[in-house]
């Protein structure tokens, strides 16, 4: 390939302290910002396939045993699930406001909104823990203390039911919500680190790129829940 070269410096120019640091491999801040953002989007594509595989497995089992899945779903606490959905949507709002604050270079607001986001995330986990504890009390944890609930056992004499499929619903429930909770823990850690770095004035500049990418991740975790909630909790609510 024929090329001509210019006399641009190969390394980055020394960054003034209020400008974000430019990594050596990038030409300018715009390129660096774009790379971070594209990187997070590609990562989220991976995550979509990750949850997609699980949802495919869920779809197969729901299709071959609809009545067991519907019955098992009734043993989840719809109220707490609903509360959690509201909490998580609220956290997404505050995350969006945090990103806005970072763009406006408003450090005080940024700190507040990051703190609120992390706190709401923690609330979600707290509610989830309560749910898990209830399920533990009801002996619904497969591979640990699983027992078919008495009223289901009673019903199963009058209803066609395969108890193994009933249990399988809970395998998928714990796998999917557990994986989601794990992602949320990572999210809370990320948001907390961002808040800490902002508080310690570690970012040169407002940390806009980092906050924005963290925000993308947070919204993704939120969206996953928005899919999991109806798939797991709202199968057969009226009965």
């Amino acid at each position, binding site marked *: 390939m024929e090329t001509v070269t210019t006399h641009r410096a190969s390394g980055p120019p020394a960054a003034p302290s209020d400008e974000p640091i430019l990594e050596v491999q990038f030409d300018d801040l715009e390129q660096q910002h774009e790379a971070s953002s594209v990187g997070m989007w590609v990562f989220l594509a991976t995550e979509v396939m990750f949850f997609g595989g699980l949802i495919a497995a869920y779809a197969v089992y729901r299709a071959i045993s609809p*009545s067991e899945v519907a019955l098992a779903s009734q043993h989840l606490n719809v109220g707490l699930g609903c509360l959690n959905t509201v909490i998580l949507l609220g956290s997404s709002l505050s995350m969006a406001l945090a990103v806005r604050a970072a763009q406006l270079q408003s450090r005080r607001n940024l700190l507040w909104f990051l703190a609120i986001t992390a706190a709401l995330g923690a609330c979600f986990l707290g509610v989830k823990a309560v749910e898990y504890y209830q399920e533990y009390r009801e002996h619904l944890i497969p591979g640990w203390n699983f027992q078919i609930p008495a009223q289901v056992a009673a019903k*199963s*004499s*009058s*209803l*066609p*039911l*395969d108890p193994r499929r009933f249990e399988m619903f809970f395998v998928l429930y714990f796998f999917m919500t557990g994986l989601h909770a794990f992602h949320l823990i990572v999210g809370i850690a990320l948001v907390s680190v961002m808040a800490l770095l902002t508080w310690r004035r570690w970012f040169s500049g407002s940390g806009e790129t980092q906050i924005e990418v963290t925000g993308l991740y947070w919204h993704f975790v939120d969206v996953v829940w928005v899919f999991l909630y109806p798939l797991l909790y709202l199968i057969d609510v009226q009965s």
Partner: protein
Amino acid sequence: MWNFPLFPDQASTIAKHVDALYFFALGIAGFFTAMICVLILAFAARYRRKSTADRLNPPTASRTLEIIWIGGPMLLMLTMFTWAAILFYKMYDPPVDALEVYVVGKQWMWHAQHSEGRAEINELHVPLGRPIRLTMTSQDVIHSFFIPAFRVKQDVLPGRYTTMWFEPAKIGRYHLFCAEYCGTNHSAMGGWVYVMEPVEFQQWLSQAGTGASMAEQGERLFVQYHCAGCHRGSQTVHAPRLEGVYGRPVPVQQGTEVRFTLADYRYIRDSILRPKSEVVAGYEPVMPSFEGQITEPDLLKIIAYIKSIGAKEATQ
């Protein structure tokens, strides 16, 4: 030592059709491989660096050429696909008059049971010129029933029935293999398939054994497992009669709806093992589960019995 086979026997009616397609594909493969190799060698020789060959106006892209070598292979592939799909359709659909044989795979042996009653291990005897339909299941892991000389293969799965069929076309003894890796002695899980004259086959069937047909053995089990107590018309328990049920749609209660399910091998098997999953409309789900109590070969016998009372019904 040099007397070794390079091509398998064509011992079933389908084998020569599969081979014809194979030779067609082989021809295409040979032609294109030869063409590419010859072209590469020719170009490497003719346009070697020191040669003074004409190199004027070399093309860097050619719409016409590219259309040719997208369109040409596409046509050939469509031909191959259509041919293969039609053949596959034939291989999939057994003729109605096929002889039934039941096969159970387990680590690491094949158990075959003829409807006439005789059972065999790691061997399969079949008559010449009759279509044979195998109904197969596994007691543990996935196996695969493979007879190279017949060009047929089918995975054998636990918990469900798969079928395959073939029509032997040549007397002889042929390899039977397990083709799906199934653990330690996978390579030892096989034996022989014997294709016999129909007369000899009848003699073979009647030799040894109990003399009872599979359905008769199934009837004994039907009584032994107390199926008969309810399903032959009981005063105390309301259970459906099973005469003529095989091969017909049965109404199944699903919540508040009733839908129809074909009473085939799968349905009868599931109804014995998990009776509450598909209950016939109008009956209470009171039948106990027989999961873990009946072996796979016995299950097949019971199904054969239920099937036979269906057949009797139909002929009466």
